[in-house]
């Protein structure tokens, strides 16, 4: 027993020391309790060392490469892809901003995000979020995390923080890959906004970063939805499939004009509002609506996930 007491006092002292030297917690949204940082870092490691996660990121990184090469081949004869200038709305002429890529490689970032946001990015997020709790339950590791004891609320918050981090990382992977490919295949320089004004390249880069952040934030709704689904089942595959299925369903419903009244409540409805960051001045209304909607989804499905997860019998 004396050995145990000795170890325990050491633990107490160490806890104080940890409190005195707070460690930086990566993504926003991580709970402020300092002891959580250890689990959060472990969670990040667990997520990003999985082959599946790396494969998803690799697919996302490949999209800008394909788009860039396609545009390069298409315009090899000197004509510009997509036709008319601007092309901000997408229209029938291909993805947003695609016409501008030949003039400025930076536009590949915007095009790549516009291409990946409707499906590739949310699908990747759906897979990671859907697997978050259900995957641990499936592998049996959930019971050991809970008797460690990770604490149900703490574990859920850590999982959500990790999925949020994945949203950001996934978006930045697309943006960084697009920027690299764009710089390699096309000239860089001043940027023409949708409004027709010209801004410097530095300012353009800043806008690109803002757009990436807006895209990452657009994914928080489906992240919360996926996490909720993940608390409902002990099968990681089922949770992933359900989340991605919901994503597709909502995307389809969003295209049906008869459901017009419901459209503003679909998490994907304002996704392409990020293009408004390329206006001069920036048109904030839809961007704010998008952020508000994502926050609403996070609150509703986050609460539902919490209610479910903290009251559920862990039988797996």
């Amino acid at each position, binding site marked *: 027993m004396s050995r*145990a007491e000795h170890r325990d006092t050491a*633990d107490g002292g160490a806890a104080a020391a940890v409190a005195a030297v707070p460690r930086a917690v990566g993504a926003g949204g991580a709970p402020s309790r300092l*002891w959580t940082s250890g689990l959060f870092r472990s969670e990040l490691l667990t997520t990003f060392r999985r082959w599946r996660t790396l494969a998803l990121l690799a697919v996302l990184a490949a999209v800008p490469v394909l788009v860039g090469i396609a545009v390069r081949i298409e315009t090899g004869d000197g004509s510009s892809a997509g036709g008319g200038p601007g092309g901000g709305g997408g229209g029938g002429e291909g993805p947003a901003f695609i016409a501008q890529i030949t003039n400025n490689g930076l536009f590949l970032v915007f095009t790549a995000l516009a291409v990946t946001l409707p499906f590739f990015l949310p699908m990747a997020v759906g897979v990671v979020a859907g697997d978050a709790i259900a995957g641990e339950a499936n592998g049996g590791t959930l019971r050991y*995390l809970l008797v460690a*004891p990770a604490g149900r609320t703490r574990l859920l918050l850590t999982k959500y923080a990790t999925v949020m981090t994945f949203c950001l990382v996934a978006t930045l992977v697309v943006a960084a890959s697009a920027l690299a490919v764009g710089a390699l295949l096309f000239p860089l320089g001043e940027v023409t906004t949708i409004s027709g004004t010209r801004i410097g390249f530095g300012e353009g880069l800043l806008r690109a970063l803002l757009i990436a952040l807006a895209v990452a934030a657009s994914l928080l709704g489906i992240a919360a939805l996926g996490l909720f689904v993940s608390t409902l089942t002990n099968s990681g595959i089922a949770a992933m499939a359900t989340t991605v299925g919901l994503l597709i369903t909502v995307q389809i419903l969003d295209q049906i004009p008869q459901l017009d009244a419901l459209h503003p409540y679909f998490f994907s409805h304002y996704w392409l509002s990020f293009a408004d960051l390329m206006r001069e001045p920036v048109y904030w209304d839809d961007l704010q609506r998008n952020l508000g909607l994502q926050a609403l989804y996070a609150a509703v499905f986050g609460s539902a996930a919490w209610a479910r997860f903290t009251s559920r019998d862990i039988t797996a």
Partner: protein
Amino acid sequence: MQEQSAAAPDPHPGADPDPGSDGVGARAGAGAAVISTRALTKRYRGGQLAVDGLDLTVPAGSVFGFLGPNGSGKTTTIRMLMGLIEPTSGTAEVLGRPMPRSARTVLPEVGALIEGPALYGFFSGRDNLLRYDAADPTADPRTRHARVGAALDRVGLTAAAGKKAKAYSLGMKQRLGLAAALLRPRRLLVLDEPTNGLDPQGMREIRTLVRALASDGTTVFLSSHLLDEIEQVCTHAAVMARGRLITQGPVAELATGARGRLVVTTPDPADAARVLKEQGVGDVVVTEDRVTGEPPDRDLAELNAALVTAGVRVRGFGVERASLEDAFLALTGEGFDVAG
């Protein structure tokens, strides 16, 4: 603050300020029960009664064998004790605190192996332990690597620590699961079928480990469907069948519950049987040179003298202690390997 309340080995669980902890007097009377349940019941949503009014008391410092066939409610009970499952009714206290409400203060002092090990296959054995340790908010991150190393050493996995867990054999996974339960000094170890998948050598090592831990003062709660395993390492035992507790107590008492049999080995079995019957031995059975029967309530030396006086040549004379299996059969009236 939570760390301190959790880490301090509290010798007086009755002093727990938790307003919900009733039954302080009962605990003090029972002499520091590490696990104590009252009318603990779990009915699953399908209506199936998995655990039915369980009153279990595990004394501190014991190696407690939790016996029962598969499907008898052992694992459901363990999951309720560990706060994974909410009881339908009744109460459970672990280390003097109510579960699952006090899970955050109780569980850091409990190491558990539940329904076999569960590992991250893409992590090495060491990384698996690092992850489980990081999940414990009261574990000191500065000593994490040292403690993980010590736990690996204790279960003999140091050499394989860098290997991916998916390449582990079942026995190695079992050891790694045990190592996870030993990451910190614990007051209670809950081991659900710890020797599953181990070879005889591994089983022996686990038993040695359990005995060593128990001699350090750790209470070990060991579930098993192997009677001889319980008999070899446990000081106390409880027997469950179909969700109900059939009996509990010190192993020696449980075994004597089914009375031992008098065994006489002799080349003159017929004479021996006649003499024994005359001396009041009941249920005399003759098998070749062995005569067995239920011993009467008097000095057995007189029986032996009577045999010798009657000219019966006696090679062996004694009482065979009843095994736990006999006790179990006597209690349940059925074989042990009954499923569900």
